[in-house]
C-alpha cells in the first residue's frame, strides 16, 4: 500500500534547500495571495521597479490607447478564436493584458531545473509503464491506478520511442503559493496549447513597451519554433537524414487552429489535415500537387482518440487510417506519443514526487499541490470531513467539469458529491483551495491586481529544453481564480529577466 500523500510530500520537503517548500499540513484559506509586484509591506519588488515607473508616467488615456493598439495587433494578425452562436459566428481575440508579468532570473533558474527534472522523470515513467513496468512491480505507484486509467493506451506497450521522449512538448501549469514558492498544479503531456500566445504576446509587448522592454534585459523566446523543429527532427534523425516534419491539425474550425498554422509557418513545415495523409504499406505520405511525398515526423495537434480510426475511435475523420500501424512499424514518429496522458492523470499526479525520487533519486524541486486520493480510505475520510474546504475533482475529467469547489458550494451539492465519493472513491481526488498569486492588470483604464498562473513550455527530444518565457494566464474577473480562456480568462506577456547586474532600468 502506498504511503499517505502528506507523508510523501513531507519527506520530499525535508531535504530540499529552502524551507518554504514544506507543504502546509492543513489548508489555510485565509492566507493572502502572493502579490507579484509588491511585497507584504507594500513595497514594489526590485524587478518590477522600472515597469512601475513607466506605467506611473502614463495617463489612463495613454494606457487605454496602448491597450487598443495591442488589441488591434491581435485582430489584424487574425489571432482570434471563433464563437459559434445560434444566429451568426463571430471572431474574438483572447483578452490580452497590457502589463507584462516579470520573473527574476534566480526564480526562473529554479523553475527551469524543476521542470527539466519533472519531465525527465515523467518520460522515464512512461517508458517504464509501456515497457517493463518495474515501478508497478515495486509498488511505488498502484498497478490498477495506471493500467485502469482511461488515458492508458495498451497499444503503446513495448513500442520503441526514440530517446524515450514520449512527451515532446509539455506545458505545465504552475502557480505561486501564498508563501511565494512555485508549485505544479497540473502537467499537460497530451497536446498542450498556448505557445502561440506566448510568442504573440511578446511581439505585441515589444511594440507597446519598447523602452521598458529594452531596459529590463528580457530573455528572448524567439528560438522556440526552431527548437521545436530540431526536437521533432531529432525523433527521426537516426534513420532519416533530413526528416520530413508536418503539423497535423484537426482543421480550421478548431479553436487552436491559429496556433497550428502559426507554428507550421514559423517552422516552415506543411500544415496537414487528416485528409491530406495517405498510409500505404505502413508508410505515411501526404498528397502534394506533384504526387505523394513521404512523411517522417508528425507533430499532431489531434487527441489520441482521433488520430487513427482503425486503432482508436472509429468515427474519427480527423486522423489517417493506418497511421498507428505505420508508427508501430517504425516508419513514422507521432509526437507527442499516444498514451502520454496517463502521466498527467489527476490521480497519478499525486505520485509524481515519488516517481521523481524513484527514477532520479532526487527530491522534487518543484512541489506538488497537496492532493488527497479518495481511493485511500483514510484520505477519503479526511476529504468527506472537510468537503467545505476542499476542491474535489473527477480523475478523468478536465476543463472544470465534474468538480466541486468546497468553499463556494451549497450543502446539497456537498451531499451529492459525498454520495458520489462513497460510490466511486477511486474516481476522485481532492486538493485544498489554492490561492493563486496576483499580478497588476489593466482593467477599465485602472491598474488592479488579478490572479495569474504560469504555463512554461518544455521540449524533449534528444535533450530537454525549457524556453525562458511562459504564457501567464489571467483571471480577468475580480477575485476569480479561473484562468481558462473559455471562462473569462485572458493572458499577458511574461518577461524572464537575464539577471544583468543593474536589473531593470527605466
Amino acid at each position, binding site marked *: 500500500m502506498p504511503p499517505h500523500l502528506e507523508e510523501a510530500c513531507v519527506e520530499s520537503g525535508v531535504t530540499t534547500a529552502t524551507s518554504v517548500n514544506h507543504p502546509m499540513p492543513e489548508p489555510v484559506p485565509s492566507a493572502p495571495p502572493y502579490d507579484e509586484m509588491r511585497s507584504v509591506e507594500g513595497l514594489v519588488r526590485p524587478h518590477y521597479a522600472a515597469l512601475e515607473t513607466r506605467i506611473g508616467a502614463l495617463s489612463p488615456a495613454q494606457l487605454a490607447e496602448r491597450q487598443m493598439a495591442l488589441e488591434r495587433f491581435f*485582430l*489584424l*494578425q*487574425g489571432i482570434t478564436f471563433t464563437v459559434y452562436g445560434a444566429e451568426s459566428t463571430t471572431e474574438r481575440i483572447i483578452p490580452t493584458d497590457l502589463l507584462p508579468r516579470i520573473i527574476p532570473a534566480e526564480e526562473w533558474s529554479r523553475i527551469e531545473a524543476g521542470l527539466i527534472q519533472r519531465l525527465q522523470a515523467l518520460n522515464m515513467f512512461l517508458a517504464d509503464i509501456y515497457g517493463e513496468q518495474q515501478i508497478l512491480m515495486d509498488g511505488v505507484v498502484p498497478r490498477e491506478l495506471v493500467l485502469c486509467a482511461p488515458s492508458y493506451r495498451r497499444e503503446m506497450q513495448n513500442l520503441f520511442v526514440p530517446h524515450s521522449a514520449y512527451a515532446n512538448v509539455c506545458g505545465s501549469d504552475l502557480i505561486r503559493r501564498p508563501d511565494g514558492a512555485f508549485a505544479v498544479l497540473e502537467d499537460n503531456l497530451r497536446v498542450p496549447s498556448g505557445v502561440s500566445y506566448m510568442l504573440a504576446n511578446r511581439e505585441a509587448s515589444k511594440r507597446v513597451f519598447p523602452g521598458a522592454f529594452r531596459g529590463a534585459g528580457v530573455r528572448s523566446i524567439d528560438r522556440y519554433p526552431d527548437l521545436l523543429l530540431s526536437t521533432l527532427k531529432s525523433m527521426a534523425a537516426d534513420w532519416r537524414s533530413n526528416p520530413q516534419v508536418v503539423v497535423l491539425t484537426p*482543421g*480550421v474550425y478548431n479553436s487552436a*487552429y*491559429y496556433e497550428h*498554422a*502559426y507554428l*507550421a*509557418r514559423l517552422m516552415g513545415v*506543411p*500544415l*496537414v*489535415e487528416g*485528409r*491530406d495523409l*495517405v498510409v*500505404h504499406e505502413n*508508410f505515411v505520405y*501526404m*498528397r*502534394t*500537387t*506533384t*504526387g*505523394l*511525398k513521404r512523411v517522417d515526423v508528425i507533430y499532431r495537434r489531434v487527441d489520441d482518440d482521433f488520430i487513427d480510426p482503425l486503432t482508436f475511435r472509429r468515427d474519427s475523420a480527423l486522423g489517417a487510417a493506418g497511421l498507428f500501424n505505420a508508427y508501430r512499424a517504425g516508419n513514422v514518429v507521432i509526437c507527442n506519443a499516444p498514451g502520454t496522458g496517463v502521466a498527467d492523470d489527476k490521480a497519478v499526479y499525486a505520485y509524481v514526487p515519488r516517481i521523481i525520487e524513484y527514477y532520479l533519486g532526487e527530491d522534487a524541486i518543484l512541489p506538488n499541490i497537496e492532493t488527497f486520493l479518495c481511493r485511500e480510505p483514510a484520505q477519503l475520510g479526511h476529504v468527506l470531513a472537510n468537503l467545505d474546504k476542499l476542491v474535489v475533482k473527477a480523475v478523468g475529467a478536465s476543463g472544470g467539469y465534474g468538480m466541486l469547489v468546497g468553499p463556494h458550494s451549497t450543502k446539497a451539492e456537498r451531499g451529492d458529491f459525498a454520495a458520489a465519493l462513497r460510490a466511486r472513491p477511486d474516481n476522485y481526488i481532492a486538493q485544498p483551495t489554492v490561492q493563486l498569486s496576483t499580478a497588476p492588470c489593466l482593467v477599465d483604464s485602472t491598474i488592479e491586481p488579478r490572479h495569474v498562473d504560469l504555463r512554461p513550455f518544455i521540449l524533449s527530444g534528444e535533450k530537454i529544453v525549457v524556453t525562458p518565457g511562459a504564457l501567464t494566464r489571467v483571471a480577468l474577473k475580480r477575485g476569480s481564480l479561473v484562468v481558462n480562456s473559455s471562462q473569462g480568462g485572458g493572458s499577458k506577456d511574461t518577461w524572464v529577466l537575464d539577471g544583468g547586474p543593474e536589473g531593470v532600468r527605466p
Partner: protein
Amino acid sequence: MMLARVADSLYWIGRYVERAEHMCRLGDVLLNATLDRTEAANQVARITLAAAGRPDPARIADPYEAAIPLAFDRDNEDSITSSLAGARENARQVRDQITTETWERLNLLYLRMTGPGAERAFTEGSSGFLNEAIADLHLFKGAADATMSHGEGWRFLMLGVHLERAQLIGRLLEVCFGEDRAVPLSDHFALTSVLRMSCALEPYLRVYTADIRPKHLLEFLVLDEEFPRSIRFCTNRIEEHLSAVSRHAEIAGHSSPDRLAGRLKARLQYADMTEIEAAGASGFLANVLDECAAIHDALYETHVAYPLELRLPA
C-alpha cells in the same frame, strides 16, 4: 512541392478575390449609370445585373435596392462579402503559406466589409466605398506579388485570378453579345459602361480612340494581347503558370491542363475578327467559356484531386 489541399485553397483565394473585384465594379457602374433616367441607363442596369447572375427585370426599378444584395448578401454566393469571406476562409486555411503582408491586406478588407459600419458607409457613398474595396484588392495582389515567393503556391493563386477573370469577362460579353440579348448593343453610353465594367475604358480609348463600336469592344476584350483583362491576355498567363506548375510537378509528357491552355492560347492568337462576326460572336464566346471550364477540371484532375492508385510508390 506543396500540399494539394493548399494549392486548391490558394487557387480559390485567387478566384474569390477576382470575383469580389468584378462585383465591386459591376455595382459601381450600376449605381453610377442609373443616375441618368434614360433607356440606355436601363440597358446598362440590365447588363450589370445579368452579368452578376441576377437577371431579374423587376430589380431595375430601384438600382440601389438591387445593389445592396450584390454587395452584402451572404446568401448570394457571388456577392462581394461572400467572395471576400470565401477568400479569407481559404487564406485562413493556408495561413502558413501566405505572407503576413498578404494576409493582413485581405483580413483588413474582410473585417471592414463585414463590420457593423459597412452598410452605412455604403449608403453614405457607394462609389467611394466600392472603389476603396477595389483599391484594397489591388493592394492585396500587389502584396502577394511583392512579398510571396513566385513559386508554385503563387502560381496557383495567379491561376485562380486569371481563370476567374477570363470567365467573368467571357460571361459579361455573353450578356452583351450572346443570342438571348434583348436589344443590340449600340448606344455609346451603354458601350462605355461595358468598358467601365471591365476597367477597360482608358486603355480602349488609347487603342481605338473615342469612336466606340461593338466590334472593337469585342475585339479589345477578347483578343487584345496587352490589356490585362482581355481573355487572350488571361489565357496567356494561364498557359504560362500551368506550364511552370507542370515543371514543378515533373509529370512526364504533356499534362492535360497544359495542353488545353496551349490550345486556347493558339486559338485566340490566330482568331480572325471578321470570321468571328460572320459566325456569330455568341458561339465563339460559348466555346471559349467551355474551354476555360475544361482547364479548371483538368487542373483538378492533375494536381488536386488525382486518383491515388496512379501515384502510389511501386
